[in-house]
């Protein structure tokens, strides 16, 4: 394995489960320097402090990070799900040509479900427990289409059928509580896709599910994407899931984007020390047994009081490779990786490729 990891950026095999990338796909979502802050009694919580990424039609971006890294908060900003009275949002979110930072609730209502839809980790609490599943899907359809109840109900049954719910006629008349976890997540996906949105945001859609059901849902999302052509933002903490579904990957840490690239680039030739740490922490199904895992020392910083300079510095093993006290003094730009166009990272290291190849890659397998 090491020989494919080491060395110059040789052409990497793409994820075998994904079709090849179309570089000319239409730019659907462009997020630039997004910041989200929550004023609290204890001070300002800097949940998102500068995130930039783009998503193209029909492609999947995975946003990876630990709890508190801002991955959910930044995506909720796209859907307008933050209370405008209690949140400060700045930067720019261009979805399908429309600016969403500062947009009215009216505008968000027209976007939600029609242009962009979101599905959540816990389908138990995101479906109405006392409304029939079919009626909930039909209602979402009617919100954007002037059709009769009967037509909407028929569409709901069709959608349930599409996402692989058996006996969709009967199931549409049941309450969410009568569904199993996997079936409920399928119903959530049907609800998300009923208006054929251009963008589907999936926030940890399989975290609450068992592995065999997770595999079913990930397959389903891949199939539906091929059929509907939606772009997907997949929020997850599971790097192995990323490997299975993503075209591009954005790694977040303490509210900032720290690395961006295609999935094979980020997972096989990562450039940011935090990504190195994440990859080393996971025991794989093929690694040597009995060896120690290599955790990232320490804890993520408090969002109330971020460290100066690079937020990852207190846990970083490589900050002494940077001349002077730059890591503490200066926040690194989210800049292109030297010699690798299209890849971005936020680090002062001059030659991360060599450090990774010489020191990190050999320890990964």
């Amino acid at each position, binding site marked *: 394995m090491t020989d494919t990891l080491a060395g110059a950026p040789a052409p990497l095999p793409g994820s075998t489960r994904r079709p090849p990338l179309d570089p000319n796909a239409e730019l659907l979502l462009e997020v630039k320097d997004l910041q989200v802050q929550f004023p609290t009694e204890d001070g300002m919580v800097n949940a998102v402090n500068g995130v930039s990424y783009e998503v193209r039609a029909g492609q999947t971006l995975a946003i990876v990070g630990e709890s508190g890294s801002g991955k959910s908060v930044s995506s909720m900003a796209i859907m307008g799900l933050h209370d405008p009275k209690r949140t400060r949002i700045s930067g720019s979110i261009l979805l399908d040509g429309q600016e969403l930072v500062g947009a009215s609730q009216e505008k968000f209502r027209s976007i939600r479900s029609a242009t962009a839809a979101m599905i959540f980790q816990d389908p138990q609490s995101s479906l109405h427990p006392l409304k029939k599943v079919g009626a909930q899907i039909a209602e979402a359809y009617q919100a954007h289409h002037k059709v009769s109840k009967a037509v909407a109900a028929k569409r709901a049954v069709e959608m349930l059928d599409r996402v692989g719910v058996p006996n969709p006629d009967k199931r549409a008349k049941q309450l969410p509580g009568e569904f199993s976890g996997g079936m409920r997540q399928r119903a959530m996906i049907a609800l998300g896709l009923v208006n054929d949105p251009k963008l589907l945001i999936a926030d940890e859609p399989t975290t609450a599910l068992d*592995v065999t059901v997770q595999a079913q849902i990930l397959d389903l999302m891949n199939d539906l994407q091929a059929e509907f052509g939606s772009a997907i933002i997949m929020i997850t903490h599971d790097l*192995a899931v990323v490997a299975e579904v993503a075209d591009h990957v954005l790694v977040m840490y303490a509210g900032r984007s720290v690395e961006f690239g295609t999935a094979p680039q980020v997972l096989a030739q990562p450039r940011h020390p935090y990504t190195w740490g994440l990859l080393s922490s996971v025991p794989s*199904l093929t690694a040597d047994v009995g060896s120690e895992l290599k955790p*990232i020392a*320490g804890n993520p910083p408090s969002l109330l009081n971020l460290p100066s300079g690079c937020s990852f510095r207190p846990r970083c093993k490589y900050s002494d490779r940077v001349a002077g006290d730059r890591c503490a003094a200066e926040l690194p730009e989210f800049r292109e990786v030297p010699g690798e166009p299209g890849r971005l990272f936020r680090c002062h290291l001059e030659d991360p490729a060599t450090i990774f190849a010489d020191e990190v890659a050999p320890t990964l397998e």
Partner: protein
Amino acid sequence: MTDNTTDAATPADEVNLGKHRAAEEAETIVHETSRERETLLKVTDLVKHFPVKEYSGLFPKTLQTHAVDGVSFDLAKGETLGLVGESGCGKTTTGRLVTRLLDPTSGSIEFEGRDIAQLKEKELRPMRRDMQLIFQDPYGSLNPRFTVLKIIGAPLEIHGLVPKNKIKARVQELLELVGLNPEHVNRYPNEFSGGQRQRIGIARALAVEPKLIVADEPVSALDVSIQAQVMNLMGKLRKELGISFVFIAHDLGIVRHFCDRIAVMYLGKIVEMGDREDIYEKPQHPYTQALLSAAPDLNVVRGAEPGERIRLVGDLPSPINPPSGCRFRTRCWKAQEICAAEEPLLTPAEGKPEHTIACHFPEVKSDLVVEVDAS
């Protein structure tokens, strides 16, 4: 968020571990395939049924949930047994039965040769010292109104292990052992991060110097980078203190990393049990094969050829009315008539007596997990 300096980075390896009862006995630790081992725990035909009421007719009917239905395994001193399976397979119930947090419906649990399955609470109490639990939820399993001193000190006091005036010193020693700052004895659980709380839970379990720890999903509530910290800590404790573990988890990578032997459970029964290599490299039960092939694999993007994919359809059947014969047959692609008529028993694989499979049509499949050349 508290003090960052105390977590993980603390070189806990340098801490003097002190004398531990299990460590003295652990000189006889025998790993993996060697069978000349000293048995610590022997579970035979363990059954637990929970009554559930069904209110469909005029009179409510009492039905039985077959949570654990005839589970047998043994655990040697210093050994780690992994229990894996999907939610509802009975792995947590098994862990709680073994430690007698639940009363078994039938079956025997021999701990150091003594059957504890039917012991009364009073007789059990002195034995509680020998077996401890670590829970999944580091938030729910610590009393938020108790200081760390009280949480970890309570078992010391109850079992009278340390004179009252020395409890604080012992608690500080334990905190150091698990890589926390000993000065934090007077803090409350909410002042610690998730990973640190899990360390407190581990320190509490260690306080009574147990011979057996049942760890129920100890890291699944933690972030990946923190998971590795806690797993390394548990690995160190196992090695240095010689504690035996029953390790319950759904993450197959972590189980492979930590466990010598693995039992795969499905709907209240063990369907396959064997050494790590048997289960991960030569799984024979269709369910084990499906479970392994469903786990997403990072190596896919590194250019590894993906192994064969098996996709299970449908959901777990209800444990109230489990299928006849083999319980997996409703989702199994190999199922034949015999599977519905006759329940397969755990049978040793050819030439490997310690690798047992409960299937009418076992078959070795080794290309499920992506093969990576180690060189």
